[in-house]
């Protein structure tokens, strides 16, 4: 009589969660380097702090829940959440806001629901939204890209900013911060300026804001790497970007002077990061193929709607969270036809 029954398959299983997560982290490297290059050390400091806080929070939560700590930490999912969070928040963010945001993301959004695989909402985005709504000023104080900046912050300046909230000697807060291109575009459109007029400023590059669009390109490279390694499938990124582009294109064709060119949307803010890294989070996205197309397209449309008519300049986080709510329903209604059911023969 067998003491323990072990079921088939019996063999090696090469696929592992930590390998999947590691590949995502690798894919983030090009974009991260670009972000640090354009916006300084604040990004790196945020990433280090976020990773540290995430690991601490997850370990504490697992201990309290009586779950094995090291094997779960080893699946690297906390690190991925931390990195995505750090890439979304401004480089000037004080250290304690990073702490609050990460603790909310890991403890409340992820662990309270049951840990990896059980959370209905994307933790990084939920943490970001939590901070955005609670601390709007700190969360919208971005830095200008390095080629447009009057004063760039050195490493020690950035450290001081992160830990004490004090800008460097002799510089005021206004002197070092600048709104994002999306923010600028939005405020100026609200002031009834025309697109042509707005784009005549040196802030703008070919598509989006200077510097910003290059960051988008490098994240795109990472996203293509993930597609090649089959870590993600093309359904969500393509449908999201198409949803965004087509909607933006439609409205741009109606009135080119009050709606920016569609490519602007793709290369601004977190659109590419969102399409390849955030919306594709397997735990919170749809799992059926048809469902993923609907999910991605809806995020794209929502991003455009919120950016154009909503209350916040960047909408990736909100769009993703809204569609996370709908994901299980979409999955339920897009089940594939099972072999042998319905129309079966040729």
């Amino acid at each position: 009589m067998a003491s323990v029954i072990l079921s088939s398959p019996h063999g090696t299983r090469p696929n592992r969660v930590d390998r999947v997560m590691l590949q995502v982290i690798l894919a983030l490297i090009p974009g991260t380097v670009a972000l640090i290059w354009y916006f300084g050390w604040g990004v790196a400091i945020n990433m280090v702090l976020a990773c540290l806080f995430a690991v601490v929070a997850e370990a504490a939560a697992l201990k309290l829940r009586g779950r094995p700590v090291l094997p779960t930490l080893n699946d690297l999912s906390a690190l991925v959440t931390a990195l995505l969070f750090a890439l979304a928040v401004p480089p000037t963010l004080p250290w304690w806001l990073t702490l609050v945001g990460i603790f909310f993301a890991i403890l409340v959004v992820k662990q309270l629901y049951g840990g990896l695989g059980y959370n209905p909402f994307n933790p990084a985005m939920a943490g970001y939204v939590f901070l955005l709504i609670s601390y709007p000023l700190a969360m919208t104080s971005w830095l200008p890209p390095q080629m447009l900046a009057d004063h760039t912050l050195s490493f020690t300046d950035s450290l001081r900013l992160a830990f004490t909230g004090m800008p460097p000697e002799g510089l005021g807060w206004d002197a070092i911060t600048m709104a994002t291109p999306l923010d600028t575009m939005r405020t100026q459109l609200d002031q009834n300026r025309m697109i042509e007029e707005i784009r005549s400023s040196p802030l703008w590059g070919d598509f989006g804001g200077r510097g910003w669009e290059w960051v988008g390109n490098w994240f795109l490279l990472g996203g293509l790497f993930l597609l090649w390694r089959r870590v993600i499938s093309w359904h969500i990124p393509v449908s999201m970007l198409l949803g965004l582009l087509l909607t933006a294109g439609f409205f741009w064709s109606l009135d080119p002077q009050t709606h920016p060119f569609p490519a602007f949307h793709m290369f601004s803010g977190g659109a590419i990061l969102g399409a390849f890294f955030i919306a594709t989070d397997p735990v919170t996205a749809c799992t059926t193929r048809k469902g993923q197309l609907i999910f991605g397209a809806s995020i794209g449309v929502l991003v455009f709607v919120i950016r154009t008519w909503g209350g916040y300049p960047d909408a990736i986080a909100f769009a993703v969270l809204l569609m996370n709510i709908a994901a299980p329903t979409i999955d339920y209604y897009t089940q594939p036809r099972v072999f042998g059911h319905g129309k079966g023969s040729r």
Partner: protein
Amino acid sequence: MLTAIAAFAVLASLFGLLLGYSAIRFHVKGDPIADQIDAVLPQTQCGQCGYPGCRPYAEAVARDEAKINKCVPGGEAVVLTLADLLGKDPVPLESGEDKPKALAVIDEEECIGCTLCIQACPVDAILGAAKQMHTVIASECTGCALCVAPCPVECIHMIPIGEDPGSWKWPYPASVHHPLPQLGTA
């Protein structure tokens, strides 16, 4: 203000009449909830829940007088089904672990033919007559053990049913990491 009071009074009486009429016109005979609960129970009529049979227990649960975790032969499966049916939270079995199913067997050397066990069996699974040998019809026995106590010579034993490959069930995968079955020497 008088019009307000009058309006309220008229509306209240109208709705009251409507409700009263519906209560009589659409009254449901019997107790459909109790029927549904009874359909879930295993019908061993063993009384281990504290009620004299499955139907009385079903009716007690329907009236919210009894907890849903009292059925011993039903085990965890019945608790979960009842929880789902009634919208309650599942609770662990009162009796602890699921007990393995057993069948009653009469020791023929000891039997004195008193028919007390025949009268006790709720599903008439014992064959016999006064001063004749009694025997349990194994295919009809539900394992309720109500026949064991009345027997004056204690000749009835509950023998657990062994598993055979046909009725064996794959176990629920354990969550704890388990070792592989090791082969010693060839």
